[in-house]
């Protein structure tokens, strides 16, 4: 049993670095997709959607990847703290932004957006 | 191909990228008229410059930039901006010509001076070989503190730091003497609350011309 456990630990020590790097890369690509959405979507609310969703999920992927790569438990604790703070502040800021834009009377664009480039290329 | 993604090349690429972003943000700040956008872009500038300080290993400077530039300076700039107008006035062309020439001359002089600068992390440069090297050698024996920045700031240069703290104190005092201590709004608020007898966080619309029956 103990040999099996040490075996598991050895495999884990080998596996976690490529796994963590892969998760970092995946999260970074997700963030990149989100920023493309922020750049190309037509109005503030859809841009908010793109930025908010990819910020939370992509940031969580990157932070979990960095946790897998980290050399000590203090680093893991700090990364977990960053994760918690981002999960608290990022949706709250998005909510406040949408609320302020709605209060100020910014109208969403409803229906077809004139030219054909707005349809069919949302990811 | 493998050498592209490890070690120093990535850090150099990151440096160039961050400096490029800084340059673009600075140009955009100079071109904009809306002061709100300028305040937000200056916050962005401090974000990027803190990342760049981390990339060149100046961690304490990065920490100060992170603490001051993101929160404090944005709030103070907003408060100062609300006391003035919200947009900058465009200057006439001839009035812009003189500052442009001054900026070009200063920039040319600075670029000319960078030729003589030592490389980043050069051990034989004047800053690293002289008193800095001495501090690095004797710092642990003298103070027993691992982070060398803290003993240099607080122990070797303690008198300077006393002066800096006094400067911060005097700055706060001068702003308060110029703008008032901010207690007048609190007094008005309490008076309004006493008049409408509406306590707590109800946020009653505090119009003073309507007397409640």
């Amino acid at each position: 049993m103990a040999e099996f456990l040490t075996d598991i630990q050895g495999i884990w020590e080998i596996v976690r670095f490529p796994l963590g790097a892969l998760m970092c890369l995946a999260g970074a690509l997700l963030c990149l997709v989100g920023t493309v959405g922020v750049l190309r979507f037509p109005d503030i609310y859809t841009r908010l959607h793109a930025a908010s969703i990819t910020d939370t999920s992509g940031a969580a992927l990157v932070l979990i990847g960095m946790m897998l790569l980290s050399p000590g438990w203090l680093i893991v604790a700090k990364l977990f703290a960053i994760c918690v703070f981002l999960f608290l502040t990022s949706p709250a800021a998005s909510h406040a932004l949408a609320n302020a834009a709605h209060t100020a009377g910014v109208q969403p664009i409803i229906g077809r957006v004139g030219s054909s480039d707005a349809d069919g290329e949302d990811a | 191909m493998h050498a592209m993604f490890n070690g120093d090349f990535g850090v150099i690429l990151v440096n160039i990228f961050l400096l490029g972003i800084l340059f673009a943000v600075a140009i955009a700040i100079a071109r904009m008229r809306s002061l709100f956008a300028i305040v937000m872009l200056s916050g962005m500038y401090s974000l990027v410059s803190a990342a760049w300080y981390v990339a060149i290993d100046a961690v304490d400077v990065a920490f100060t930039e992170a603490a001051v530039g993101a929160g404090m300076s944005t709030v103070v700039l907003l408060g100062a901006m609300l006391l003035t107008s919200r947009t900058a006035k465009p200057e006439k062309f001839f009035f812009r010509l003189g500052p442009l020439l001054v900026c070009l001359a200063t920039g040319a002089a600075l670029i000319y001076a960078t030729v003589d600068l030592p490389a980043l992390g050069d051990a034989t440069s004047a800053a690293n070989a002289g008193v800095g090297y001495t501090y690095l050698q004797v710092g642990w024996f003298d103070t027993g503190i691992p982070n060398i920045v803290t003993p240099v700031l607080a122990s070797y240069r303690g008198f300077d730091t006393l002066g800096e703290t006094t400067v911060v104190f005097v700055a706060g005092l001068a702003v308060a003497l110029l703008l008032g201590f901010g207690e007048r709004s609190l007094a008005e608020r309490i008076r309004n609350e006493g008049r409408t007898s509406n306590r707590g966080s109800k946020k009653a619309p505090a119009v003073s011309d309507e007397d409640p029956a």
Partner: protein
Amino acid sequence: MNTDHHVILRVVAKMLIPVIVIFAFYVQFHGDFGPGGGFQAGVIIAVAIILYALIFGVPAAMRAVPPAFTRSLAAVGVMIYAGVGFWALLQGGQFLEYQALFHEPPGEHHGQHIGIMVIEIGVLCGVSGAMLTIFYAFAGRVAEIRDEDW
């Protein structure tokens, strides 16, 4: 009309402000071993109180942390810093000579640790007090913004 307009922000701020203050104290006392120190910790504490003022209104923040307290805090911080210098003078050393605080030979670090910790606390008080004084000076000149307006 009776709904709380920013209930999400209030809840998040209530959870966030103590964490910011605790992180500021971590920065303060971890400055010997990593990046950080009194100046950064003072600014972070000031930012926590500014967040309170932004969410709950400037008058509420002025009741919690009065302006008279902040400007006294700034003065007290500078006095703590200078007091360490005079303490060293009274012990027979030079101004701000921490080695003389406990009459230690070179190589002993007790006086250095105590002296640096006390002056960092002085810097913390001075910087946070000055920053909050500046913030109150600006915030007191701007009319209060109602919750329904933003």
